[in-house]
């Protein structure tokens, strides 16, 4: 199976930036070198802004909106959810080191005992379950999404810090990488088609954001109003190429998020931001 996967990877790789036989760290360093050539005007730290870094007009609007964001009430609602104790008196803070501050950059991680990628949202649900509460539905706007719109801000400024260590972790990372680089849907595009090979180009009036740094700034509030998490964006992107999307919280998207986040290691996170 592995040989077939590697052959497949070899045939679909559109760029030399991510060779088939490389460690995650070699992949990451490779992609950084790729972007240094493709987008020479950007510094490493600029990549957290994605397409905004490629348009002064867009960046100015971002700054203006972020000065006093219209979605502040949603983050406030999330903070009330975070602070409200469970029926047993415990809180979300008790489930995380540091009360939940500066933890988001460690997610997703690979749990060797469970044999799978664990996201921040899964850990929140485990926290709820451990404290006698019903789990939230992944991708539900009023519950999990609103809660994480606040919870993730507790890690603002924290550099992405994904670890891929065991062979099983590497396999999950590679599964995510395969998704990212595999063409799909009626339009037959891979994520990388737009966000690596055409990063910085314009398609349908919009500047394509680069993959580097893209995992650092979620969730977003589209138009200042519409809350979209990273995996909900995966759904959106799959739909845009007319592919059947996977479910938010599925193993496919968890592995994709694992790979995708690793690519942004070292870049500071900022949650709940404005995007178009």
């Amino acid at each position, binding site marked *: 199976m592995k040989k077939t996967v590697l052959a497949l990877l070899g045939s679909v790789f559109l760029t030399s930036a991510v060779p088939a036989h490389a460690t995650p760290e070699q992949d990451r360093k490779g992609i950084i070198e790729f972007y240094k050539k493709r987008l020479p005007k950007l510094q490493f730290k600029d990549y957290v802004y994605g397409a905004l870094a490629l348009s002064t007009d867009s960046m100015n609007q971002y700054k203006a909106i972020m*000065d*006093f*964001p*219209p*979605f*502040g*009430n949603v983050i406030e609602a999330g903070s009330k959810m975070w602070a409200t104790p469970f029926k047993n008196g415990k809180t979300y803070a008790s489930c995380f080191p540091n009360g939940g501050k500066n933890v988001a950059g460690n997610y997703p991680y690979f749990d060797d005992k469970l044999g799978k990628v664990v996201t921040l949202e899964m850990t929140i649900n485990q926290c709820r379950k451990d404290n006698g509460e019903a789990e939230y539905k992944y991708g539900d706007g009023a519950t999990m999404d609103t809660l994480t719109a606040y919870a993730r801000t507790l890690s603002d400024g924290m550099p992405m810090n994904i670890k891929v260590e065991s062979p099983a972790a590497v396999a999950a990372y590679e599964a995510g990488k395969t998704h990212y680089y595999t063409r799909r849907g009626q339009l037959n595009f891979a994520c990388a088609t737009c966000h690596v090979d055409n990063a910085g180009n314009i398609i349908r009036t919009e500047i394509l954001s680069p993959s580097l740094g893209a995992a650092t700034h979620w969730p977003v509030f589209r138009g*200042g*109003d519409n809350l979209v998490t990273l995996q909900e964006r995966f759904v959106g992107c799959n739909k845009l190429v007319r592919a059947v999307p996977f479910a938010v919280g599925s193993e496919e998207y968890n592995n994709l998020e694992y790979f995708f986040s690793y690519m942004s290691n070292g870049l500071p996170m900022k949650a709940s931001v404005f995007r178009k």
Partner: protein
Amino acid sequence: MAELTKIRAKMDGNTADIKVLITHIMETGQRKDAKTGQIIPAHFIQNVTAALNGKTVLSAEWSVAIAKNPFLGFKAKGAKTGDKIVISWEDNKGNKDTAEETIK
């Protein structure tokens, strides 16, 4: 509830720089309910006033085209640190709110 109206007020030289963010749906009356196909009725702030130490400095009439969770920025000369800014608004359904803030 004053929670709906957030005010930031600070001195910038001799002028008070006031920024207001209001939680309000500002429904245009042009959208249709996805399930029923019916028009969602307009629900928006029509009037806003700002008073500095009890004197009206700004009086506004708004349309449905002011953005959801509306933002307002204005400047008042002759203000000083410690002065009081009061923002009041009323929407087309008669809902109102008032909030006040001390200029920093």
